[in-house]
């Protein structure tokens, strides 16, 4: 009998509707207004790669040890070095990083002994061409420059 009354009075459906109504309150808005508002990603976010430079001298921190290239499962890092004839030390010449194949696993970052290679909080990596996905040393040092949209 009780069940019948509940069925006729649509109790089950109204209870569900009440949940929906409760969630209509503006404080339950969770939508992010991305390009206008850029989300703040976590500090440890693994995004666009960066090759750190010494802020005082402008020299690269990378010592050209090639460990990141060896650690990468996708073999997408190519480190070019040459030997400085005067000091007889390896210096970095080129550094390419193919972001199109990268899975942002962070293994290269962990492998780097001098914290030169770092995955940063930038997450806008889109490009109009495939070649644009391959970052050279200059881009890695200066970082990508995504378009900032104003709302």
């Amino acid at each position, binding site marked *: 009998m009780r069940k019948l009354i509940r*069925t006729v009075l649509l*109790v*089950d*459906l109204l*209870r*569900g509707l*009440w*949940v*929906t109504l409760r*969630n209509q309150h503006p404080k339950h808005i*969770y939508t992010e207004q991305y390009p206008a508002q850029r989300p703040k*990603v*976590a*500090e*440890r*976010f*693994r995004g666009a790669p960066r090759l750190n430079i010494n802020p005082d001298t402008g020299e690269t921190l990378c010592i050209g040890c090639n460990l990141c290239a060896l*650690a*990468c*499962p996708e073999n997408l890092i190519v480190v070019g070095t040459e030997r400085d004839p005067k000091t007889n030390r390896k210096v970095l010449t080129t550094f390419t990083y193919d972001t199109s194949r990268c*899975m*942002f*696993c*962070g*293994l290269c970052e*962990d492998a780097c002994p001098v914290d030169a290679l770092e*995955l940063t909080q930038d997450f806008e990596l889109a490009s109009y061409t495939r070649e644009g996905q391959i970052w050279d040393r200059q881009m890695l040092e200066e970082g990508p420059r995504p378009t900032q949209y104003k709302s």
Partner: protein
Amino acid sequence: MAGSTFLDSSELVLNMGPQHPSTHGVLRVILKLDGEKVIGTECVIGYLHRGVEKIGENRTYVQFAPYVDRMDYVAAVSNGLGYCLAVEKLLSVEAPPRAQVTRVILTELNRIASHLLWLGTHALDIGAITPLFYTLREREEVLKIFEKYCGARLTTHAFRIGGLQYELYDGFEEDVAKFCDMFLPKVDEYEELLTDNRIWVERLKGVGILTAEQCKAYGVTGPVLRAAGVAWDLRKAQPYSGYEQYDFDIPIRQNGDTFDRYIVRMEEMRQSVRIIRQALERIEPGPIMAKVPKVIKPPVGEVYVSIEAPKGELGYFIVSDGSTQPYRVRVRPPSFVNLQALDQMCRGALVADVVAIIGTIDIVLGEVDR
């Protein structure tokens, strides 16, 4: 069908997928229909095959870890845990206690995230659109914790062989505790929306029944098996990562239909919260990485380790030939095995129920095809 007209042709073969939105990915199901009734199905899989097992043979043990996240991308943390445990067993090392507790917290959070996505999409398939928004909202909180902890939301690569790479961030405990407090009332809210809803009950009760015997015959595990009345959970049956120290129940139901599987998963989310709360109290200072050689070269041998992933038993079989790369990696994905029971569940059902049945198995095609 030669010589038959439209009217007397009783059998119709219909392709569902691979681009059907309700097949949860690129699954193709060939349905043999008699009117509205399904008299047979056949699954065509492999559209998402990436050769993960073969990749494993060409990567070092450390390098292969990010790839396993990409099988069941909804529950990447569980995948990573299974792989790390397997290699650790091969190396005969054990993660330190702090790492183990963190692993438990993260995998249980991941179980919740996986079940939430399942609930939202399953309800969406049946026609209830609202729960999807709510479940994704709560899942976002879990993903935020993952992002803060390891820097990625989905394919986390959170664990390393021998322990953890990342130390807990400041405020991890508070974030997780806050999530637990926030989450339990939300589960009740979902239940309020669905459990008594007459449409939901009508669509799910008695649909896609799989008895305990059939489950065992097909090797089906996970919530599907538990909904058929078998209290089999690897966290209890073969505890790993210290699960034997936690106090939790295995939710079971008797009927083995789609509705019971829904109830089992809802209850599992609550049990996960219970485990997380206990684990939070167990976090103690200490090392997070066991002593693992820099170049991982396990001794010759083979190992099979299985864990209870959100979808069922996830097993890794690794053969080592003593080099830095595995000789063979074989994955036993729960989705693939559970999907085999689809034909049994669909026979005699209506076309509209096929959608409900595919949803209730909770498959991820990345894992089925690997």
